[in-house]
């Protein structure tokens, strides 16, 4: 796909140069070198080459804050995705975080001969060999050792998700050799490896006979729901665990912690994939409100105005990312909430990372408990 096709597909021609995108962009607020409007203008004015070799191309969080406000409905995140693909075919790439191990892992997982051992954490969960429902675990088993230093446990989220499904009377299948969904590869321009992963996953899911796939990770959910249909045939319905929970709240018995009768104030961070990408704002809030002993308070920017956690697709994490995070955490603290709830493991990783950073200017002011929504529900089920 060349730049002209990308411009047509994402309706960039309709740009009014109003600058709402740059005004609302969380990156532009801190990083004056990055501006969605400037990026689009360069594509339209025939400076495509300059655009492709601009290192800020990989700074976009693809959080959809810009396109959400755009009066002409220009799809800037998809524009970014496709231009990154062009750029990566010319040898350009962003700065990988964690020295690139996560991208190396994605590539290794795409090799067809591997036999992963990714399910040794299933104790206490009831799963079945044959079921209509499949639980997509995602990267949790790989994230677990990598992020143990900042006390994030994605495997715990996966375990609790299955326990919640069990409580709803579902014994899901899990794929023993499930592949990475490829979300991060797609959004950094490596469409070749993404396609390979998509085909491997689609094949396995077809063989498993699943009719419904449950996700606890918004990125996997988005990828299966919006991106996979463009590349592979998928004959089942993806659903996020918050949607499933919100529909079946009455079947769960949720209780407040007996040890701590005081009402706890919590606030909710909308993950961009779940919120602006897929429009799921209410189900997570319904769930939080249904838990006794917990009061949901909203941040200054919430729902479709919510601000991203500062980094996406493990690329270009910079001091600006840290500033975005600090600002968001200050906003969360300002609500008086004791706990920040999110529905995406990556949000949790990014916020926790900002808190343990010894160089952070705001230091103690941004410390607060961060928890995944799934874990919050699981805790309320146990007590």
């Amino acid at each position: 796909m060349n730049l002209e096709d990308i411009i047509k597909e994402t309706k960039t021609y309709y740009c009014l140069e109003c600058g709402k995108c740059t005004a609302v962009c969380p990156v532009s607020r801190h990083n004056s070198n990055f501006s969605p409007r400037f990026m689009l203008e360069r594509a339209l004015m025939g400076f495509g080459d300059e655009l492709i070799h601009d290192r800020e191309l990989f700074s976009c969080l693809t959080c959809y804050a810009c396109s959400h406000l755009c009066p002409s409905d220009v799809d800037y995140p998809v524009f970014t995705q496709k231009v990154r693909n062009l750029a990566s075919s010319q040898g350009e790439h962003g700065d990988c975080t964690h020295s690139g191990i996560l991208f190396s892992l994605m590539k290794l997982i795409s090799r067809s001969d591997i036999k992963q051992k990714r399910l040794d954490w299933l104790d206490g969960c009831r799963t079945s060999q044959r079921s209509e429902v499949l639980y997509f675990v995602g990267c949790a088993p790989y994230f677990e050792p990598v992020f143990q230093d900042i006390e994030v446990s994605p495997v715990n989220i996966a375990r609790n998700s299955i326990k919640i499904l069990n409580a709803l009377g579902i014994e899901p299948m899990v794929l023993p050799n499930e592949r990475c969904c490829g979300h991060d590869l797609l959004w950094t321009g490596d469409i070749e490896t993404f396609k390979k992963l998509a085909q491997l996953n689609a094949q396995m899911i077809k063989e498993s006979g699943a009719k419904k796939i449950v996700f606890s990770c918004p990125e996997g959910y988005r990828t299966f729901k919006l991106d996979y249909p463009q590349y592979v045939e998928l004959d089942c319905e993806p659903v996020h665990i918050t949607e499933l929970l919100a529909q079946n709240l009455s079947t769960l018995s949720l209780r407040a912690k007996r040890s701590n009768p005081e009402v706890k104030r919590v606030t909710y961070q909308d993950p961009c994939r779940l919120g602006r990408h897929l429009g799921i704002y209410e189900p997570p809030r319904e769930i939080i409100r249904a838990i006794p002993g917990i009061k949901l308070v909203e941040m200054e920017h919430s729902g479709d105005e919510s601000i991203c956690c500062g980094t996406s697709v493990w690329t270009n994490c910079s001091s600006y990312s840290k500033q975005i995070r600090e600002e968001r955490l200050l906003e969360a603290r300002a609500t008086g909430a004791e706990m920040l709830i999110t529905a995406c493991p990556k949000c949790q990783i990014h916020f926790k990372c900002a808190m343990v950073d010894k160089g952070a200017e705001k230091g103690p002011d941004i410390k607060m408990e961060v928890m995944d929504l799934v874990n919050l529900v699981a805790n309320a089920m146990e007590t």
Partner: protein
Amino acid sequence: MAEFEPKIIAFCCNWCTYAAADIAGTSRIHYPANVRIVRVMCSGMVDPIYILKAFEMGADGVLIAGCHEVDCHYLNGPLKCDAMFEKIKSVVNTLGLESERLRREMIAAAEAPIFAELIEEMVKQLKKLGPSPLREGVKV
């Protein structure tokens, strides 16, 4: 068909294991030629990406070898290496690789015969295991 010859990438610390490998050479100790040594200044500088990249590019086994804890030129390199190794071992295990494919050893500068024995042992084990499942599509 010729017998399978595994490829081992060894990250050896400049002060101990690299010296041991050097002495093994100058003392004419025989050991298999399947190992490719990458000299690093300290085992503590080996990053997880080095290991994954080696597997990505078709290595059948990876060895990280450096000083014993008390010998480190930089005080605590081996401890850093151990902490890193624990993490990456778990990741590599999840990928489905056998534990013999990734090893962490401590070999002092004077322990040339131990280095030669280790390589011999690794090659034997890797020959039994066969090519790495991650090798697909990589010409080695």
